């Protein structure tokens, strides 16, 4: 029987539960120490889903909600590889994204920001990684938008990502940012990440991924927990 466990969650890579500059964390983050639970991998399944659960346009946000035209804004390609901490590609894993439109407005019914909705843009997509762990989305560059955390607070441009990886414990919910965004320095959500790990949240512009006369390309690799690797003696 396989007795493997997951690589320990690297809490040095993640924001703290309570990060006071991000105001809503103050009353919502757990305050007591977590109880260790080293469950075997065989008891930690990721959910079952199949590529046939996905629609043919699910990874193309420029077309998956089009009604009478194309969404407004700058078309971009967002692609990258999903790896585990051992460097192994995570194949056939679900990647779900959601984002604001080019004007910085979310479709969500409670978003009250006074910026226009785009009738041809939902802002949600998903795909399953290929044999090399690669995912690829075509979308519109999301706009910045104001929020109520502090006076004149604006979120940097970002795309939300949700991944499972191979195990229940390798779950990750994160956000991808864009290089050179001046709002990153002012954003308590991004800044809540330990300083040495922040760069991992910023995508990389890539001229190789960019398609001529069509769309700029951004690369964003994602690293999830994987089977624990005990160093082998030589």
């Amino acid at each position: 029987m396989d007795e493997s466990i997951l690589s320990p969650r690297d809490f040095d890579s993640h924001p703290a539960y309570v990060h006071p500059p991000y105001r809503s964390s103050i009353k919502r983050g757990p305050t007591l120490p977590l109880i260790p639970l080293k469950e075997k991998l065989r008891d930690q399944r990721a959910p079952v889903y199949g590529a046939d659960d996905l629609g043919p346009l699910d990874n193309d946000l420029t077309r998956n909600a089009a009604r009478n035209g194309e969404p407004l804004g700058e078309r971009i390609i967002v692609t990258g590889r999903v790896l585990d901490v051992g460097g192994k590609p995570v194949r056939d894993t679900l990647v779900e994204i959601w984002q604001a439109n080019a004007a910085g407005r979310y479709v969500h019914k409670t978003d009250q920001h006074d910026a226009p909705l785009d009738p041809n843009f939902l802002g949600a997509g998903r795909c399953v990684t290929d044999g090399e762990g690669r995912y690829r989305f075509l979308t519109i560059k999301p706009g910045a938008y104001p929020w109520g955390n502090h006076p004149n607070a604006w979120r940097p441009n970002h795309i939300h990502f949700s991944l499972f990886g191979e195990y229940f414990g390798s779950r990750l919910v994160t956000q991808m940012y864009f290089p050179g965004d001046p709002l990153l320095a002012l954003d308590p959500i991004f800044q809540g990440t330990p300083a040495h790990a922040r760069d991992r949240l910023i995508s990389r512009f890539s001229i190789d991924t960019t398609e001529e006369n069509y769309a700029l390309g951004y690369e964003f690799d994602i690293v999830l927990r994987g089977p624990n690797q005990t160093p082998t003696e030589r």
Partner: protein
Amino acid sequence: MAFKETPSQTVGPYFAYGLCPEQYGYDLKSLFTPDIATTEAAGEHLTLIGRVFDGDGNPVHDAMLEFSQVDSAGRYPSTSAEVAASGFRGFARVGTGTDPQQRFVVRTVKPARANAGDAPHIDVIVTMRGMLTHTFTRIYFDDEAAANAADPVLSAVPAERRATLIARRDERAGRIVYHFDIHMQGERETVFFDL
């Protein structure tokens, strides 16, 4: 380790149309629903009902919870075909924003023991606006007192906090409901795990 984990960031307030579209009435197929099992699945059918409370004791209207469990024979499904045939997905996703009282309502069947010595339980992922990193908890059942007493995970929890992990059974007119609230902070702060 060759590679470092990508840091977590909050799910934010606007996840619904991407992650729980059908539950919230958006025009996109949901990959996961609030049902762990359909009515066709084998086993004792039950409904889990609860709320998530913040440190002020207010119910959270924009939390997202995910549930994972074995079926009534102690097994996880392995393929989509198996899920379609049995009605048991073993996984559910629900937001707390569609119920007027901010409750989550999840239909399932009672899990068997996954391993000898483990009490029946459901694993839960808890995240919401205001959490930069998700957390894990577990639901045990109050009518499994003997199994709970022998469970190694529950036994590792300080005795005075174990009650936060145990759902309360309520049976009315043949309908079985288990109540399970999650308290993020405060005197009754739920036990969260470093899974």
